[in-house]
């Protein structure tokens, strides 16, 4: 059973979050170990497993971007079985741009961060944050809708568009974080809202 099926939902990206929360509470209550205290041990074990499954499903679907990432993994898993995996690729132009920004940042760091350089990098970071936000809006808006309304034959193309936007978002986050680290910008403004998961993953990666 996939995480959508746990809640009896179709594989769609635009979900009524209040409705999802109601479904979650209902299932969580049903399988809660406290309500299974009188049940046989093997039933208690099953309830515990179901409870963990419901929690995992809610975590995967709750945040709109995490939901898209999950859908991509889910759809790719199916593709893998058919032997047709396509690696997520960012547009080459973006890759070049990210490389140039990183290179300029490395040079700026090596040359010492003068106030002028700091101002330039800071302004660049602001622009990149704005693009990151745009990409998230595009993912949650038109691209999510595009997937939801797509006929089966259109789905591979819609999925590819989602993957490309996710890749773009990931690259933008990396350079924004790297610029932030270089500037000593630790006010957490960028990473504060809903970025905790991504930030943890990033930190776990031990970039230097």
């Amino acid at each position, binding site marked *: 059973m996939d995480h959508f099926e746990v809640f009896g939902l179709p594989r769609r990206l635009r979900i009524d979050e209040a409705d999802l929360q109601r479904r979650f509470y209902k299932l969580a209550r049903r399988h809660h170990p406290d309500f299974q205290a009188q049940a046989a041990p093997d039933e208690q074990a099953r309830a515990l497993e179901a409870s963990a499954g419901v929690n995992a499903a809610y975590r995967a679907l709750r945040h709109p971007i995490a939901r898209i990432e999950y859908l991509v993994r889910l759809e790719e898993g199916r593709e893998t079985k058919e032997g047709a995996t396509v690696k*997520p*690729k*960012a547009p*080459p132009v973006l*890759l*070049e741009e*990210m*490389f140039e920004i*990183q*290179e300029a940042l*490395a040079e700026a760091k090596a040359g010492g961060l003068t106030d002028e350089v700091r101002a330039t990098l800071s302004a660049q970071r602001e622009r990149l944050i704005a693009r990151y936000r745009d990409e998230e809006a595009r993912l949650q808006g038109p691209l999510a809708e595009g997937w939801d309304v797509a006929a089966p034959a259109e789905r591979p193309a819609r999925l590819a568009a989602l993957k490309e936007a*996710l*890749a*773009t978002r*990931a*690259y933008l*986050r*990396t*350079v924004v974080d*790297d610029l932030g680290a270089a500037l000593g910008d630790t006010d957490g403004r960028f990473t504060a809202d809903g970025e905790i998961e991504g930030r943890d993953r*990033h930190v776990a*990666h*031990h*970039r*230097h």
Partner: protein
Amino acid sequence: MAYSEKVVDHYNNPRNVGSFAKETPGVGTGLVGAPECGDVMKLQIRVNVETGVIEDAKFKTFGCGSAIASSSLATEWLKGKSVDEAAKIKNTDIVNELKLPPVKIHCSVLAEDAIKAALTDYREKHASAPAGTTAR
């Protein structure tokens, strides 16, 4: 997670860091990235267009220690190889040499992709040049 000695060595003393001008004759450039972690890797080869042998290789990687080590090692291995031999380098060779743990295997995949991209770029620019296989 602890890095292997070889990874640390390549990270502290990366070999062949730098770049060639893209349009120099004999130069092939591969620019690849891993969206999951935001790494970008540029790997370049400079091939002797007469013999098809890779005379020099350079890289620049913005990413984790394993990505840097994988590309650094790749440039070492590329030098002196023919274009055809270079195409046989596999990510598993890099994994074995650097003792990369499973979570870092994607770094070696990235390095293999970079090699392939550089070779493709070279071949596209030098369609008629020899690939450096055994003398005919």
